[in-house]
């Protein structure tokens, strides 16, 4: 249990070991640990950011969706009104057309009838005059009895 040069030797040995640890052992281990720590905290931060942006995207998505829905409803409504408009327009137009056709048809029928009547009258008066001329000879002529003929024709 004497105190001797072992003490000095141990002090030197200790300084050597501490120096080795200080120079070669400690720094690389510490840098690895710090690097990893940094990576982990970076990763966590990135995850949080991603989470936030996901939330944001969800909100934006919902907003867009709602807007699109509203637009679609709007368009649908417009289309509906337009369609009913078109239908009613068309039916109005058709009715008008039908009436027009009816009117023109009835007027043309009347015309035809009148025309036929006129022709008939003409032919009738011609026949009468012809017949009467044949019976009475030249006593009677178309020119002399024009008034009477006209009257008769009108009575027909």
């Amino acid at each position, binding site marked *: 249990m004497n105190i*001797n040069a072992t003490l000095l030797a141990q002090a030197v040995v200790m300084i050597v070991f*501490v120096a080795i*640890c200080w120079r070669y052992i400690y720094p690389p281990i510490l840098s690895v640990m710090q690097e990893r720590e940094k990576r982990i905290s970076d990763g966590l931060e990135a995850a949080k950011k991603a989470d936030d942006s996901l939330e944001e995207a969800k909100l934006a998505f919902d907003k867009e969706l709602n807007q699109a829905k509203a637009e679609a409803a709007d368009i649908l409504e417009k289309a509906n009104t337009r369609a009913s408009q078109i239908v009613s327009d068309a039916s109005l137009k058709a009715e008008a057309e039908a009436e027009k056709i009816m009117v023109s048809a009835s007027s043309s029928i009347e015309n035809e009838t009148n025309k036929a009547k006129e022709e008939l009258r003409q032919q009738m008066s011609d026949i009468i005059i012809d017949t009467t001329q044949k019976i009475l000879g030249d006593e009677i002529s178309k020119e002399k009895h024009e008034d009477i003929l006209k009257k008769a024709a009108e009575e027909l």
Partner: protein
Amino acid sequence: MAKELTTESYIEHHLTNLTCGKTPEGWTCDPYKVEQMGFWAFHVDSLFWSIFLGGLFILFFKIAMPKKINAVSAPTGAQNFIEMSIEFVEDNVQSLFGSVKNTLIAPLALTVFVWILLMNLMDLVPVDFLPVLAGHIAYAVAGEGVEWIKNPESFYFKVVPTTDPNITLGMAFAVFVLTIYYSITVKGLRAFIAELTLHPFGKWLIPVNFVLEMVNFIAKPISLGLRLFGNLYAGEMIFILIALMLFFSSIPIGILGFGLHLVWALFHILIVVLQAFIFMALTIAYLAMAHETEEH
């Protein structure tokens, strides 16, 4: 010259270092010539284990850390253990040092802690195992020719370096030197001298101040070294006494000795770790003091 194995000789054998030094006839490790060696003698066993275990520490921390530093993958196995010890040391340094930046402190604390822990753990190796093994090896190597190795059983070989005051005080001395170095470089020589001379009593009682502060200053490394030595020496002593129960008494006491041995070994695990921790914490604390500029 083989001595009879008695209780005293057994204890003495376990508490004596293998000492090598220079005698008038030249270098020798003869235990009967220790007296002639004077100061310049070395406890070869203590130094061997101290260097061996220190080397083990360096090697383990170098090898267990992967060569290709990969900060992405999770650490495994021994790397976890290393990172745990580093974190433990960093926490302790952080709590005592705070904002002061000195890259030496943490590696110093780590070295001190792991190294002392390993040296203390040698205490848990059965007391007779390594000394007798070393005796037989020495006998096989040196052979019959050397007078003092003739009896392998009485070959002096202490395996716990921290039960040697030279080792503990040597480490405390190294810490002391570092303390002085940092006191001077951080505070400046003038402030350091002022600290040692100008209080507690002011500048009119400089000699008294100096004596008081000097006692305080020197007591730190001595108490640091002796605390570790005392604890481990006492622990080793109890192991030896329990071992004596096994060999020199009746069977019931021998059986009791077995039980006590187990109990003491379990308890000693606590002491081993605790003393290593205390030495480390005090080392950090003393160096932290060296960095503090006291304000009065």
